């Protein structure tokens, strides 16, 4: 056990799985970096933010494959390789680039098994950065997990900390279905205790980071930290919150969400993706259908506005959910007590 950054946790997960299983291969733009460069250094980058650094040096060019800038071909290749015996981990760099390769994910990898009557296995992991807060503007800041969650056949992982990232990524690599693994680009330098050995965190089991009586807060990815911060502050004001990290948006741990809402009677959902048809809607609809009787107040969503992500810092700050907005939403549902439950 030692302190590791989110970046290191992911690097370690990849390294350990590649050591364990020779069919695990990596591919992506500059996942090594330096092929064809004049210095001859072939492990120059290790990904655009250094997450895969050193893996080419350890595993060689046959297992760490730099690609041309052509997402459709290499994400499709990853799907094809997964269906024929490898366990590829393909890096899409920014999840926003899914616009260049959605077909390979949505119509190919995700559908093989069902369309082929159960005869295919596609153990594919696609890693990509998501999220605002980096001044990366409209084309490099989207969250987009709602898109993937909408598509049957995909599993979708959004880790909320270094510990979570390592365990969930190892699980993803060992999983036999196509998995979208989303890394918040603002979190790469977050640090916490992370076991040195390989471990897995199962999909579809929400993590209760805090238990309380008044309000359940469900938060996704980076939002979990903000929800805990808000809950800390609220505790001092006498409002006690449950904070729930679903970890995976598919499979979704519906049961734990429903149980928590049964206990608290109030729900706030924090989601940094665009507000229409997003995970906040999804979880809200689940609860409004299946735990309606327990609800003491309207379900509130803390989400960005329906706009592209703006570049400028003050606008991006206004755009993003944060602890203040979560705190305000929780207080609002505490005030809006519209009924006693029968």
């Amino acid at each position, binding site marked *: 056990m030692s302190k590791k950054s989110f970046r290191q946790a992911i690097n370690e997960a990849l390294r350990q799985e590649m050591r364990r299983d020779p069919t695990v291969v990596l591919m992506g733009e500059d996942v090594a970096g330096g092929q064809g460069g004049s210095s001859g250094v072939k492990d120059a980058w290790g990904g655009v933010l250094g997450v895969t650094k050193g893996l080419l040096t350890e595993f060689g060019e046959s297992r760490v494959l730099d690609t041309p800038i052509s997402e*459709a*071909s290499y*994400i499709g290749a*990853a799907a*094809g*390789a997964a269906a024929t015996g490898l366990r590829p981990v393909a890096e899409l760099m920014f999840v926003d680039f899914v616009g260049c390769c959605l077909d390979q994910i949505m119509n*190919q990898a995700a559908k093989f098994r*069902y369309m082929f009557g159960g005869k295919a296995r596609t153990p594919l992991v696609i890693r990509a950065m998501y999220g605002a807060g980096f001044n990366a503007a409209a084309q490099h800041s989207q969250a987009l997990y709602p898109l993937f969650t909408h598509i049957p056949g995909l599993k979708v992982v959004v880790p909320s900390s270094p510990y979570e990232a390592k365990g969930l990524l190892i699980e993803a690599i060992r999983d036999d*279905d196509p998995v979208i693994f989303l890394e918040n680009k603002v979190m790469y330098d977050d640090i916490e205790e992370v076991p040195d050995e390989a471990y897995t965190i199962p999909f579809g089991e929400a993590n209760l980071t805090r238990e309380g009586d008044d309000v359940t807060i469900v938060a996704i990815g980076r939002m979990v930290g903000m929800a805990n911060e808000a809950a800390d502050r609220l505790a001092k004001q006498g409002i006690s919150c449950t904070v729930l990290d679903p970890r995976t948006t598919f499979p979704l741990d519906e049961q734990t969400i429903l149980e928590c809402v049964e206990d608290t009677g109030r729900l706030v959902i924090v989601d940094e993706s665009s507000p229409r048809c997003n995970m906040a809607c999804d979880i809200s609809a689940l609860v409004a259908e299946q735990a309606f009787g327990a609800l003491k107040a309207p379900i509130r969503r803390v989400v960005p506005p329906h706009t592209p992500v703006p570049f400028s810092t003050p606008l991006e700050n206004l755009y993003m959910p944060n602890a203040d907005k979560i705190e305000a939403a929780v207080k609002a549902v505490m005030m809006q007590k519209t009924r006693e439950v029968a």
Partner: protein
Amino acid sequence: MQISRETLLRSYRAMRTIRAFEERLHREFATGEIPGFVHLYCGEEASAVGVCANLTEQDTIASTHRGHGHCIAKGVDVGGMMAEIYGRKTGVCRGKGGSMHIADLSKGMLGANGIVGGGPPLICGAALSHKVLKDNGVAVAFYGDGASNEGTTLESLNLATVWHLPAVFVVEDNGYGEATGASYACAGTQKDRAAGFGMPYMECDGSDFFAVHDAARDAIDHARSGKGPVMLHVHLQRWYGHFEGDAMSYRAPNEVADAKKDHDCLESFRERAGQEKLLDLSALDEIDAAVADEIESAVQAAKQAPWPEEADLMADVYVKI
């Protein structure tokens, strides 16, 4: 190099099976009993069969919306295919895929594909598997002249060269993508495109089994021996509409008739087999009869097969949830 008698017989049987399968589908479709979109491969049989004659079961192919021929050539069960097209539980995809999604990974058949240009990236991946797993396999993407304009296809040509993959890109050029002529939609030439991605190019007459076979042999040998990917451009004619129901008003009235008369791969095979005394024509007649029976039983079996049930609806979305 001489093609073995066994290969010749097997190939003739595969071509005849495709022809009979397709012509029967054409008739059955007209009765309204077959649902969905059906794209017939009739007239193009020698391409699938000439290429696949050079492949083993562990080699991989990816196909297109017009996939029946490739499936049969790669050894997918004909009865299972027919049942699939009829939407039955006994279909190769248990009735969930239909004509456009027939696949059998145990036969190295990575699927027909409803997405034009869907196959070439997958084949880069299959070729990578062969390369990393060092199983001596080759991966072959079949795609049309229309698909040759998709970004996925073009990117894959580049990726295959960059990764030096054991892959063959077979452009099945029947001159049309739906109702649009290749002379309109494809700028430049396939040959120059291959050069544009540093890839060797070969071409052949797709109505001549022997021509396809020999060109494919060279292409596949090249890829298998570690020399990198190859493009094989096969010139073809499609005998029916783009899909069943297409009146083909974009084609000159005699175009299909001429193709049937002058470019029938089965006729030219029989002719050459006879002339060069490669095979006894009576053996071919026997095959014809056997195939006719096989297709008849496949249709009967399909029509009598059970439908999928409610429990099937949710099955096999994931390996494990």
